[in-house]
């Protein structure tokens, strides 16, 4: 999946799920502050990531994700990662 597709899809479902104006989502914006996430919101975040991109979120994945750009990079790496056998 191309990065541009990932960005478009991500912004769309995040704006819908967390009911914010999509124009507020910019690569350098802080993910947690922009989406006003509390700990319970991460449950919804995990569910929308897994259902939209079809991979399982691991506990250590969100360490170091601060901005939306960090998030796009994370998703791109996971989506395009080769399957381990």
């Amino acid at each position, binding site marked *: 999946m191309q990065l541009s597709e990932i960005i478009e899809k991500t912004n769309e479902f995040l704006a819908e799920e967390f009911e914010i104006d999509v124009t507020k989502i910019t690569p350098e914006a802080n993910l947690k502050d922009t989406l006003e996430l509390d700990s319970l919101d991460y449950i919804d975040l995990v569910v929308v990531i897994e259902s939209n991109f079809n991979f399982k979120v*691991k*506990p250590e994945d969100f360490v170091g994700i601060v901005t939306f750009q960090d998030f796009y990079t994370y998703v791109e790496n996971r989506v395009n990662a080769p399957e381990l056998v």
Partner: protein
Amino acid sequence: MPAWEGRSKGPAWGFRFFVTVLKIGGVMPAYVVLRFVTLYYVLFSHKSTKSVLHFLHKLGYGKGASLLKLVQNYYLFGQTLIDKVVMMSGIKNKFTFNFDGEEHLLKMVQLGKGGLLLSAHIGNWEIAGHLLKRLGAPINVVMYDGEQQQIKEYLDSVTGKRNMNVIVIKNDTSHIFKINAALQNNEFVCMHADRFVAGNKTITGNFLGQYAKFPLGPFILAARFKVPVSFVFAMKESSTHYHFFATDIQDYSAVPKDVVTGQILDDFIKAMETKVKQYPEQWYNYYDFWQ
């Protein structure tokens, strides 16, 4: 604010004393000593006493009956702490159990989607967790780190580490991801759904005829992760016998998003109400539970 303050009862030396009595004399001598501790709490623990009497009043008990049940409540609570140490450390004992609904939990294991087991601070929830070993599936217990560190370390040294994984609720979000990972691995995740710490998001439900706040987290987890749910309790029926209950599997995957959380809460409250009416002395939320 009707929230739990985040700390359990009892000083560290109290735990050490009881463990010494247990190791030397066994369970029954410890229960005898417990009677004096019970008297202390009845006489001096005004805040807890007020909360228990308020609860018993809601169940329809008059003054005399409530006072008797209050004494039984403190005594039984002390027994649950003693029994926990005994069972988890392998001290010789004569405890017996029966298991009601274990087949539902075994079926949950077969479904392969993990399972969320919700309980409350009634009966002996730690024993319930210990008994779940029988299922053969990994158990994860989600909890606040409410014990003082020295009490925790001391009890761990006596009982050995819990043979289940503990997921501690922290200010970061790590516990959410660990819960998700455990469920995806077809493991059980056990958590209380009756107590919250001030500042947590809550959901309101009608419990025993009055609205009370419950922590939103367990119900959101059940609703969003769409895993099988059962409500589990372990109730003490005599000095040596426990009765474990697990409800039939609750499947909320097809319930609309806007109502599912409320429905899970309603079902949980019904299960709790059934148990507290059957075992009114085993209510251990020692704070004002209602708004």
